[in-house]
C-alpha cells in the first residue's frame, strides 16, 4: 500500500465576523496517499477552498480560525507545529496552484525569480543554480524558449503560460502534496486540457498526492481516484470516482451529475440545474445544509446531521433517506436510467 501522506479528521474552519460566525468548513475528513488524486467537488461557497487553505495554514487570522479537527502530514500535526516549521512545509511538502494565474504572480518580479525564490529557500541552492533549475522547470511544464522566458515578467506571458509557470513554481521543490485550486477555471477551454495534462504528467513524474479542487465534474472524471462532494461546508458523499459517477447516493450528487452535459444523449437531453440558492454559511442548520434545496427531505433532515452510511466499497454518504428508497428514487430520475458519463 502506498505511503499515507495526509490524514484530515473532523476539520472545521470558521470565520468570526461582526455579522456572525461564518461556518465555512464543518467536520471534513479525508485521506491522501502518495500518487493518489482526490477531487473535492462542490459549488462555490461549499468550503472546498477554505479546507485546502486550512491545510496550508493560510487562513487569514483574524477573522478565520481552524476550530476543530486534526491535520496530519504523515506523522506531523499541522495544527501544532511552529510557524517556522509550517513555512518549511509550505512550498516544500505541500504546494499550491491557484485559480487565477493573472493575479497570482507578482507583476513586478521576473518569473524566474519567483520560481528560484522557492528553490533557494527550501533546497539550499545558490542563485545561479536555482535560476537554472527554474529555467529547466519552465521547459518541463512545456514553455518554449524557457531560457529566455525565465527572464521575463508575468505580463509578457499568456494566461495558459502563467498557469504553467505557477505549476513549475509549485513543483519546484518536489512537494509530496500538490493542491490545485480550480487550476483551469480562469482559462480558455483549449488551454484547460493542456493544463490538466501538465498537472497529470508532473504528478506521475514526482509521485505526489494531488488534491484537485473544482466544480467541474469533467475534470474530476479525468483525473481523480476518489471524490469528496462538499455542500455548505460539509462532506455529503465520499468515494472512489467510479462509485460517485455510477452509484451516487446523495441527492446533491445527483443534482451535480444531472447538470453535466452528456454526449450519449440526443436532442431530448436537457441539463437540469439544481433549484435554489447556496446556503448562508452564517445561519447553517445543525442538520444537512442541503435540506432547503432537497426535493426528498425528511422531517429530521434539517435538525440532525445523519451518520455516515457505507453504501459501497470505500463509499460513504450522509443522508437520511433509507438506502432502498434512495436507489428507487434514483432509478426514477431521467438522468440515471443509464450509467452517467
Amino acid at each position, binding site marked *: 500500500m502506498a505511503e499515507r501522506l495526509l*490524514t*484530515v*479528521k*473532523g476539520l*472545521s474552519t470558521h*470565520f468570526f*465576523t*461582526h*455579522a456572525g*460566525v*461564518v*461556518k*465555512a468548513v*464543518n*467536520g*471534513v*475528513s*479525508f*485521506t491522501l496517499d502518495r500518487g493518489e488524486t482526490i477531487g473535492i467537488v462542490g459549488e*462555490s*461557497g*461549499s*468550503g*472546498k*477552498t*477554505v479546507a485546502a*487553505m486550512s491545510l496550508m495554514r493560510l*487562513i*487569514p487570522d483574524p*477573522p*478565520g480560525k481552524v476550530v*476543530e479537527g486534526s491535520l496530519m502530514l504523515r506523522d506531523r500535526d499541522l495544527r501544532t507545529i511552529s510557524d517556522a516549521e509550517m513555512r518549511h512545509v509550505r512550498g516544500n511538502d505541500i504546494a499550491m496552484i491557484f*485559480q487565477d494565474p493573472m493575479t497570482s504572480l507578482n507583476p513586478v518580479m521576473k518569473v524566474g525569480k519567483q520560481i528560484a525564490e522557492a528553490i533557494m529557500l527550501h533546497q539550499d541552492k545558490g542563485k545561479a543554480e536555482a535560476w537554472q533549475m527554474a529555467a529547466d522547470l519552465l521547459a518541463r511544464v512545456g514553455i518554449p524558449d524557457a531560457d529566455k522566458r525565465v527572464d521575463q515578467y508575468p505580463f509578457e506571458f499568456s494566461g495558459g503560460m502563467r498557469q504553467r509557470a505557477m505549476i513549475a513554481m509549485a513543483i519546484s521543490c518536489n512537494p509530496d502534496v500538490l493542491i490545485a*485550486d*480550480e487550476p483551469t477555471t480562469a482559462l480558455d477551454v483549449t488551454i484547460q486540457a493542456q493544463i490538466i495534462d501538465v498537472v497529470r504528467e508532473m504528478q506521475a513524474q514526482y509521485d505526489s498526492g494531488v488534491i484537485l479542487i473544482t466544480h467541474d465534474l469533467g475534470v474530476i472524471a479525468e483525473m481523480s481516484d*476518489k471524490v469528496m462532494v462538499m455542500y455548505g461546508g*460539509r*462532506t455529503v458523499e*465520499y*468515494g472512489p470516482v467510479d462509485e460517485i459517477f455510477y452509484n451516487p447516493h446523495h441527492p446533491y450528487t445527483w443534482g451535480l451529475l444531472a447538470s453535466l452535459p452528456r454526449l450519449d444523449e440526443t436532442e431530448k437531453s436537457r441539463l437540469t440545474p439544481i433549484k*435554489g*440558492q*447556496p*446556503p*448562508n*454559511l*452564517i*445561519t*447553517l*442548520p*445543525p442538520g444537512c445544509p442541503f435540506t*432547503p*434545496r432537497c426535493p426528498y427531505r425528511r422531517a429530521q433532515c434539517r435538525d440532525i*446531521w445523519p*451518520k*455516515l452510511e*457505507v453504501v459501497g466499497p*470505500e463509499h*460513504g454518504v450522509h443522508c437520511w433517506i433509507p438506502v432502498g428508497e434512495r436507489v428507487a428514487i434514483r432509478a426514477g430520475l431521467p438522468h440515471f436510467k443509464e450509467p452517467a458519463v
Partner: protein
Amino acid sequence: MPDWDEPTREDRDVYGSSWVTAPEDVDARRADEVVEEVLEEQTKPLGLWADTWRRLKRNRLALVGLGIIIVFIVIGTTEAVFYQMHWHVRASDEAVRSGAPGYLAPYDPNQVNYDLSPEGLGSPPSWQHPFGTDFLGRDILSRTLVATRVAMLVGIIAVAIALTLGLILGPISGYYGGVVDSIIMRAADIFFAFPYILFVLLIMSVLGQGFQNVFIAIGVLGWATFARVVRGQILSVKSMEYVEAARAQGATDMRIIFRHVLPNSMAPVYVAVAMAIGGAIATEAALSYLGIGIQPPNSSWGLMISDAVNYLAGGNWWWLLFPSIALVTTVFGFISFGNGLRDATDPKLKE
C-alpha cells in the same frame, strides 16, 4: 471504508429562516470573500446605500467626520437664517450687549469695543467672551461662528460650480471619446499642470478680490477633477450590458448618459465632492489669509488668522487659535468623511 470519523462537533446553533438568499456566484476561493459574500447577501434587500452606510458605520474616523460636517452645516445655516434680524435687535438691547446668553453667536460679529485691554489688543478668553476679543474689541466667538457660513457657502457653491462643469464635460468626454475626449482631457492636463493654489491666485489677481470671485475662481478651476472622475466612471460602465440594452432599444445618448450611466457611477463622484468641499474651504482660507479672498468687514477664518498673525508677537494666541481650530476641524471633517466614503464604496477594498 474511508477512514474518517463522524464530525464530533454538535452543531446546535440557532439558525434563521432566511438562509437561502446568497447570490449565485458565492466563491470560497478566498476566505475573506466568503465573509464578504455573506455580508453582501444580508444587505441585498437594503440596497447599495444601506450597504455603504453599514460599512461606513464601522469607520469611526468617518463618523466623526460626518458629525463635524453636520454640526458645521447646522451652525452655518442657522446663522444664515437668523443672525441679521437678531443682531439688529440686539445691538440696541442693553441686556444682550452686556453679555446675556442669546443665540448661537452671542454678539454682533461686527460690533466693536465689546472688550478691549488697556493696550488696545483685545482681551483673552473670559466668561463673557469665551474666545476672547480682537484688536477692535470684537467678539471672536461670534466672528468664528459667522465665518462658518462663509466657509460653508464657498465650499458648497464652488464645488457645485465645479461639479456642474465636470458633469457636463466628463460624460461628453467619456461617452463620445475620440477627438472631443482628447481635447477635454488635454485641457484637464493643462489645468492639473499648475500648482493649484497658484492658479487660483493668478485668476484672483485678474478677477480682483471679492466674495463672488472666490466662488468663481475655486469653482471654475475644479472642473478638471470632476471631469476626470466622471469620465473614468463612464468608461468603466459604458460597455456594460444594461447600457448596450438601452442602446439597442433606441434610447438617445442623453437618456443613456443621464438615466443609465451616471446613476450607476456616482459613488466616486460623491467621494470627490466631499474631498473637494474640504479643499475649497481650505483654499478660501488661504486666499483670505493672503488678502485676496473675502474682504473686511465680512468675517472669514482665513481673514481672522491673517489679522491675528500681525499681533502674534503681542501674545494674542486666542485670536489665532479659535478660527484655526474651526478651519482645521471643518477641513478634517470633509477629508475624513470623504476617505471613509471611498473605503466604503470601493469594491476593491470590501472587507
